[in-house]
């Protein structure tokens, strides 16, 4: 139901830098002792959602909209290991009905991305594998049990991701598979109904699995454009009942597709980022369309020539 089911970091393509850079989703690396930091603004909205599998609108919600600003940084610990941190501020509101909007600092996430191995496949094809492990945790005491307006789910999450990247000259294909375990959360009430009555304020949050495929063209060190498709689903969770409100432990599935692009601004160290995503299918989620725009700046503390891993 929510726009950003897990920290924005995992959803948006970000930071730019010569040759390397990047988010914890892609197959690019910041070189050793380089740091890249910046801000991304994201806007998303929906006016239809899936209540279970039923696609509907709701005149007492109208259009849901979410604005977010995320601060992020990526540091090259060495040429094969990056540390990526991010922290979003989120504002959610609805255009109809009387429910008050919510805003605040969401979850801090930190991930380590390790280059694992590379193989030359012949005919100019090469394969690269990487692994990501990270955590995220709420930094403010926002309300989780107020969907769709809650700015997050309040769980502390651990996630692991495998990234496989096949490159042929300037073309590349990246496949990722992610698994996220989410801690139980505590809500403000002492009983809630899922498919049965639960007495207590603790909610088990289903795990999340995500697969993603990117196809892209990298024109030069700091210019690329890519198409991506992503399927996310919770392992378990329950459906929203007819005309009920959503709940953090709902079964939430999403299939979406979009475009990412990056423009380096010459030798200034600045890069611009942009993305657009469109939801094709879902379950207990809003059919959101999102756009993002970011600016990042990279600095090299190493004073060395970069060597691509």
């Amino acid at each position: 139901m929510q726009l950003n089911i897990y920290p924005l970091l995992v959803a948006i393509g970000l930071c730019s830098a010569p040759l390397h850079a990047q988010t914890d989703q892609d197959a690019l690396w910041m070189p050793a002792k380089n740091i890249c930091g910046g801000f991304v603004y994201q806007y998303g909205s929906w006016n239809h959602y899936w209540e279970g599998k039923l696609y509907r609108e709701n005149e007492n919600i109208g259009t849901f909209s979410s604005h977010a600003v995320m601060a992020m940084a990526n540091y090259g610990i060495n040429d094969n290991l990056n540390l990526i941190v991010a922290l979003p501020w989120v504002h959610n509101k609805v255009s109809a009905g009387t429910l008050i909007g919510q805003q605040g600092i969401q979850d801090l996430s930190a991930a380590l991305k390790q280059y694992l191995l590379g193989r030359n496949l012949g005919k100019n094809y090469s394969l690269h594998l990487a692994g990501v492990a990270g955590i995220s945790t709420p930094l403010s005491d926002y309300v989780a049990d107020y969907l769709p307006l809650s700015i997050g789910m309040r769980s502390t999450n651990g996630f692991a991701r495998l990234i496989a990247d096949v490159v042929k000259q300037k073309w590349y294909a990246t496949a990722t598979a992610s698994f996220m375990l989410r801690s139980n959360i505590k809500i403000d009430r002492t009983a809630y109904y899922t498919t049965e009555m639960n007495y207590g304020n603790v909610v088990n949050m289903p795990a999340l699995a995500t697969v993603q495929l990117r196809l892209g063209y990298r024109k030069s060190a700091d210019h690329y454009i890519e198409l991506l498709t992503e399927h996310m689903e919770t392992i378990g969770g329950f459906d929203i009942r007819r005309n009920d409100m959503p709940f953090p432990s709902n079964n939430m599935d999403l299939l979406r597709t979009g475009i990412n692009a990056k423009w380096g601004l010459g030798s200034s160290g600045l890069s611009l980022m942009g993305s657009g995503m469109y939801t094709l299918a879902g379950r207990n989620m809003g059919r959101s369309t999102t756009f993002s725009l970011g600016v990042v700046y990279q600095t090299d503390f190493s004073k060395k020539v970069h060597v691509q891993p």
Partner: protein
Amino acid sequence: MKHLNLSYFATCALLMASGCVRNDEPYRVSFPMLNPAHADTGAGSWKTILLKAPDEVAVATPTASTAADYRLELQEILARQEQKTKKDEAALEYWGAGTVLRWNEILRELVAKYNLPTVANPDGSYPIPSNNNPLAYPYFPFSNPPYAARAYAYVSAAQYDALVAATHYRQKFRRPNPSKANTSIQELIPVAGNYSYPSDDITAAGAAVALMKLLFPGEQAYLEGKLQECINTMILSGTCVRSDADAGEKLGRDVAAKFIARARTDRAGSTVGTPADWKKLEDNAIARGEIPWISQETPKRPPMLPLFGKVSGFLVDSAAMVGNRPAPPPSIHSEQFKRELAEVKAYSKSATREQFRIVHFWGDGVGTYTPPGHWNAIACEDFAKEHFSEVRWARNLALLNMSMMDAVICCWDAKFYYFNPRPSQIDPEIKTLTGLPNFPSYTSGHSTFSGAAATLLGHIIPQRAAAYNAMALEASLSRLYGAIHYRSDIETGMNMGISIGTKAVQRAQTDGAE
């Protein structure tokens, strides 16, 4: 080195995956086995609610303890105890906490399951659930707060009368407990009293099932299944033989029939009203020079059970209710109204996290067991610590739930007599921290329920009286913090609730149980 990295990540992923094997059982409050401090063997003379006398409903004389049939029944217990499984042990732990408690929980669960407003038709009208077709959408019932309050009251009151009758008959027939008739039989749950015919546990179950089938007609199979589980568990426990259970079930159902007859004529069936009724409420408010309530939903939804104020209550008669109807809320045109509206807006604009917590803790809105269900949950957790007998459990819950049913009747009478608007109707800039209820503002239902519940519970467990009053005040204020009620609504509602709770206390002082 790179292979090592890969295996490192694989190991991490496995460790994380192993952590996702989770217990799928729902969260439950852990209740101890019910081990009554007093058997209340004199409860056969307690004042009943609908029964004119404890033996108004007949119970057949049991077979003698020397009869062959009875010996076979004892053998059934022994056979069950020898074959006891893990599942049986879980059932003993569950039902052993008390059948009045467990049927109250089952009722709360059904209320939460059915407490969902209907979706509008394409033409903007709303379908009305029908008890003739409960399983087709819109499901019957929509167990909103008035419906739920009445459901809790009828089930608890019927259980109470049935258990008074059961106590009367146990003392009359004096059939010894199975463990006395056959010393090989173990008592797997604590037993109060010396006699088992008819079983008090199954009497309470029979009464609950009969009423809940009326109130939740789509749940027949579920309820009968739960009843069989309850009966089988009680026989296994060694506290009753099958004929004790059968007699209890029949007694429970027969007493419930009296309450069902009352329920069919208490006017609850016509509380939805007609478009002409709704128009009249609006016209009355306009005639008084006020702005009438208008639904803030799209499309506009008819008000929730506008004629519920006409339902006949258990403690407060209609004439007294109308006579004691609260004075009007501040006029829309008054300075006081403007001040109260400004106060609501201020809370909405500057809600703290703690205020959000309070609003959501007491919200008890769509999809929940409603405010009366919340007070039942609070009561049950405290009653469990008091080691009440089953009949005293039923009596205390009956007093609590009759007071809350009467609270909602009086509250709905005021709401629809005055038909005044919610704050966000007058000032659309006021945003709410919880769902806006679809009925007029004055008086606050939460406050009325809570005033009644806290007053009665404080009488039952005096050492908790201050805590209950503090809870009631917080529940009441939650509606102001949530920006859905004015201060007049909550203060007047609380006072109404306290006066209705006092009626329940007066009954408690004279029903023979104290």
